[in-house]
């Protein structure tokens, strides 16, 4: 159970403080701040103890969200709770920032009163909470939806070639009570890839962790049906039919999701409550349905002048017409690049070379040659040239091939309502060994 809860700004200012059990004084806030700022990089920050008190904290929106406990309670539930709480505050206040918290402190105290009682978590569902919360949120910036004339054109479902601007999803849910507020739903399919490709080019490990996230700004809750690929299968044994089935090893669902149509038709049925939720999480290990999106052909050698030469050729194996944006990369240890809009820099303190590629089209390849003066370069230190890590963002593409077939709301809403489906794949850790 949670003894106290407080929110601090990154500078250590007290924004919110609530004591639930009277077990410790408010002086521990400063103790916490001292401790957390004194942490070094290799110490696990998760739990810290001070006398009989244990601090559990997370950082969200540049703020410290801290809970203290005196008993042997579960750090998992506390962290999970703090994450939900920050999500709730974000949902209610529109964004997470020092300013937003200060402006809405009465609302946040109200929330804290409802979500925790005597340190026991009561509920974190915005659906339940909306019955109890009286205060109105104050938005930090006057909310302007993106150009409305633009939206009118694309009212249809599953827009593939039009993406809602990212600011659209940051506004308080409560303001949708206002008459004339937009009713919108965003469904995001977000995947994180972690790949290890060995020095011989063999794929050694590939994992995808994905989630379907729903952001709902519907004033009243109606039933929503999300259809996934029909050939979607879970587990290693159940392959259906021929061809490229979309398979995941394991998936878990938010508890509000009803799965009665999932087995037969791959439909998730839910009544989305306002705010942001992760509806489904899934994981796929080892067997990717397609080849990894990037391949690197490195060659590292020592030239006659004793310099280290690294020649890197990067190929994007995505189908043509798909373009990738933002592709900075770090290699294990000066420079020549193949095209003008790229840049590279050497970071001495962590002994890395960064190669930034703003955009890369599917089916193309880029190359770079780095020459490094390394004092005392020996043949053995060639072994030290570390792996290449890629970080990238691939919009409109999922590694598992998961697609949202349809998104239906029932009963059909009167008035304009927008439904947005977005796909994105991030690199979690995409490593190519040399």
């Amino acid at each position, binding site marked *: *159970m949670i003894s106290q809860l407080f929110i601090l700004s990154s500078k250590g*200012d*007290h*924004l919110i403080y609530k004591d*639930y*059990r009277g077990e410790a004084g*408010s002086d521990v806030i400063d103790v916490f701040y001292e401790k957390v700022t004194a942490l070094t*990089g*290799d110490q696990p920050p*998760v*739990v810290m103890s001070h006398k*009989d008190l244990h601090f559990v904290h997370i950082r969200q929106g540049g703020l410290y969200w801290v809970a203290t*406990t*005196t*008993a*042997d*309670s*579960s*750090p*998992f*539930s506390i*962290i*999970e709770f703090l994450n939900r709480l920050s999500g709730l505050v974000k949902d209610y206040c529109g964004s997470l920032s020092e300013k937003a918290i200060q*402006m809405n*402190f*009465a609302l946040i*105290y*109200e929330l804290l*009163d409802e979500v925790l*009682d*005597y340190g026991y978590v*009561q*509920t974190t569902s915005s659906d339940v909470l909306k*019955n109890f919360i*009286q*205060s109105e949120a*104050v938005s*930090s910036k*006057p909310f302007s939806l993106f150009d409305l004339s633009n939206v009118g054109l694309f009212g249809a479902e599953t827009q593939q070639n039009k993406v809602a601007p990212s600011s659209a999803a940051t506004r308080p849910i409560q303001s949708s009570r206002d008459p004339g507020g937009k009713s919108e739903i965003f469904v995001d399919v977000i995947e994180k890839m*972690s790949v290890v490709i060995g020095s011989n080019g063999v794929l050694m*490990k590939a994992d995808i962790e994905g989630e379907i996230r729903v952001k709902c700004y519907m004033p009243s809750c109606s039933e929503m049906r999300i259809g996934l690929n029909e050939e979607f299968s879970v587990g290693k044994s159940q392959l259906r039919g021929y061809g490229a089935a979309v398979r995941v090893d*394991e*998936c*878990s*669902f*938010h*508890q509000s999701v009803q799965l009665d149509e999932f087995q037969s038709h791959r439909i998730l049925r839910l009544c989305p409550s306002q705010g942001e939720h*992760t509806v489904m999480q899934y*994981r796929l290990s080892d067997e990717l349905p397609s080849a990894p999106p990037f391949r690197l052909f490195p060659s590292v050698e020592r030239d006659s002048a004793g310099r280290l030469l690294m020649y890197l050729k990067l190929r994007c194996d995505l189908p043509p017409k798909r373009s990738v944006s933002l592709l900075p990369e770090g290699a294990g240890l000066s420079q020549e690049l193949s095209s003008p809009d790229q840049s590279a820099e050497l970071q001495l303190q962590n002994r*890395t070379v960064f190669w930034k590629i703003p955009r890369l089209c599917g089916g193309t390849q880029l190359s770079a040659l780095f020459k490094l003066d390394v004092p005392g370069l*020996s043949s*053995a*230190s060639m*072994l*030290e040239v570390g*792996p290449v*890590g890629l970080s990238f963002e691939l919009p409109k593409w999922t590694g598992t091939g998961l697609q949202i077939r349809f998104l239906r709301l029932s009963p059909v809403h009167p008035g304009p309502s927008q439904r947005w489906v977005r796909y994105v794949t991030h690199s*979690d*850790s995409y*490593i190519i060994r040399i």
Partner: protein
Amino acid sequence: MQEWASQLCENRQFGSKMTDSKYFTTTKKGEIFELKAELNSDKKEKKKEAVKKVIASMTVGKDVSALFPDVVNCMQTDNLELKKLVYLYLMNYAKSQPDMAIMAVNTFVKDCEDPNPLIRALAVRTMGCIRVDKITEYLCEPLRKCLKDEDPYVRKTAAVCVAKLHDINAQLVEDQGFLDTLKDLISDSNPMVVANAVAALSEIAESHPNSNLLDLNPQTINKLLTALNECTEWGQIFILDCLANYTPRDDRESQSICERVTPRLSHANSAVVLSAVKVLMKFMEMLPKDLDYYGTLLKKLAPPLVTLLSAEPELQYVALRNINLIVQRRPEILKHEMKVFFVKYNDPIYVKLEKLDIMIRLASQANIAQVLAELKEYATEVDVDFVRKAVRAIGRCAIKVEQSAERCVSTLLDLIQTKVNYVVQEAIVVIKDIFRKYPNKYESVIATLCENLDSLDEPEARAAMIWIVGEYAERIDNADELLESFLEGFHDESTQVQLQLLTAIVKLFLKKPTETQELVQQVLSLATQDSDNPDLRDRGYIYWRLLSTDPVAAKEVVLAEKPLISEETDLIEPTLLEELICHIGTLASVYHKPPSAFVEGSRGVQHKRLPGSAGSGESVESPDTGSAAGVSDAPPAVIPSQGDLLGDLLNLDLTPPATTGPPPPATSGMQLGAMDLLGGGLDSLLGGDLGGSSAMGAGFGAPPAAPAASFSAPVSGGLDDLFDLGGGVGMPMGAYSPPKTVWLPAMKGKGLEISGTFARRAGVIQMEMTLTNKAMSVMTDFAIQFNRNSFGLAPAGPLQVLTPLSPNQSIEVTLPLNTVGPVMKMDPLNNLQVAVKNNIDVFYFSCQYPISMLFVEDGKMERQVFLATWKDISNDNEAQFQIKDCHLSSDAVSNKLQGSNIFTIAKRTVDGQDMLYQSTKLSNGIWVLAELRVQTGNPTFTVCLKCRAPEVSQCVFQSYDAVLKN
């Protein structure tokens, strides 16, 4: 604060909209007056704004308690938003203004009857948070009503309120019968109410460990399992944690609970998942391993655990700490999931290190190639700490998986080739361990290692390298040169290296005596004369004496075969592991410490244990049962074993404590000794006459004076009556108590000497000790603990040493004991391992207690019962002993034994031989029956013992012997 205010001012300018932040800006003097006026305003809006300002000041830590009456006046309102704000204020300041708080009581009572359930709940929630004793009694009636409210929202709030009230005034809650109402709420139709009732009851039950408040029986369990499916994720956590405390009656019940808990594993909330894992891990202990379901369950546990690793790094870390425990308990769950523990490039270092640890635990013959390939990659990463750990991990793999040793060694050699300084050093440290584990197998690599000698600058690596050189001196041609090079800077080395160098050179000398006399002489004199370090000096002397008295023995000791090092390292001790498994998902599992180590003691933390297996086959360590017959001898002693053989030797008490002993020797006699040593010792080694006659030894010079003095002292503690400081406590009547003996010599106790004995006085077992401080500094903070022992002896109270013990002072302490501690069979049976702590260190020693002090006063059996029991016990359990040289008459014998609670029940005289029939009862209820034959004029008695637990007979006989001869 200034900064805060200015920033807030900035916010204020922002837009024309009213924002809460403006409330923070009032920093002027006299604001309290202003606020007072506003609070008393007639306009509702103005009032609300004013209360908001007050709360804002409160948050930033300003004292606004002066406004208490004005704020409370605002309480009577139908505006819910305003009411909430006032309540918020009230919760904060009621404690500091208890008299004023009473003003609020009326409103609470009224609000609890409000038609709006939100207001009723708000009132009941707030009033529990006002921790003022005076008003609690006014709250009972409203609370009682709210517990039976028609609205579940009010009921669930009231359920928690009972826990709040209990914390303030436990007696009141019991008297008012709230606990029963709370128990009824477990059967409530609303799952939220059930969950809160469970949480409240669990908390209350924790402060009454024996109250059986949460009466878990199959019916309630069934109710909880039903509620589990319906309530919120947070409620599910309370319920699962509560289920984990239940012990199913049999494996069938355990299986059915597991079946109903399993669906929780796919919950999106990782806290729910982990609580479910805890329940399953615990109840799995009950399932027989050959059951199909057991295998299914094992398979089901893996995916959710793996999924936990896709969370944020913080959660990952917590998950990994838990997985580390699970893997130690049941490695089979994750044995196929090795790949998920491979380190990602962007993991934070603390996650990387945890993953590495789990990788090693999961390493097996099947996956070792994969693991090694990974580890080799890690060893070339940038982060130094991680690289070091990775190299160590390769060594641990070699030791754990024998088949992989060769590959590991070649991987390590590759790494040494990189010449990266810290990699080389780590590699050498682990190669030393590999040599220990697989002697005489990989010596071919020594040459490569020697090439890197110069680059080693860390003590651990230097020590490891020196060990290798010493151990394999005969195969390294220039071993003497290598070691000599280290010797140059001997005094600049760390102790670890110095000790290792000393040993290595002695080894070298024993192996190649001809060429290395000078070297050994040099090192011995460096160690004994020029060093201030007692460890080094003592080790130096011991070698010196060994070499001078008996070189053959020296060879046996120094070059003895070393015990193999164990396979698995860093394992958590099994009993601790069991306890931690019961705390999966909690802080204990992150710290890897039992909750008692960090949760305040007053709560009466109970040690949780896994239930024993009901099924066949598996031998799970069962929780200890009270009876001596059922003692298990499985778990190893907690007393740490000494290091290696030499360590043992050195830890023996060599010299009298520093205060009385002679000052460190630097006499000319020493020099003589040193010269002689090489004369004689060499002869005997070279002469090939390894028969090791003492005549040869005599050829050695007299050993240096100081060591000689120290060696004349008895070498072992605890056995010798020479140390009898107590001077034999006179025992005219009553139970026999042996004289005090030295249990902890001052040498081992860093100056603390403990001598003691056991006695039974007026039915109480006592440990009587003399603590003597032979160190130079004051000793304080004494505490004592026993290891588990055969009869459950445990201290009945703390060790009472009230005043600090100043140097050269002795103190007599009597520690009453009871026999309700944990039981474990010891060998010998009456062995007791004790740990004594003071401000300096913790010391361990073991002593043997006379079993006679366990003989209880009501040990006199009825004649009839005696007869029946004697016949009943089979003859296999009979043991016969002789007591020699005892010149007592049978009556005297009887009297003497009676004093020690050995009761004579009958006496018979046959042919001039007295037969005494005697009975004795041990503190754990074991009866010992005896027949003692005394022949007049014959000093040898025969005693014949019968007992259902025949292992005690030997000890009982020893007591007979001791009692009769004293």
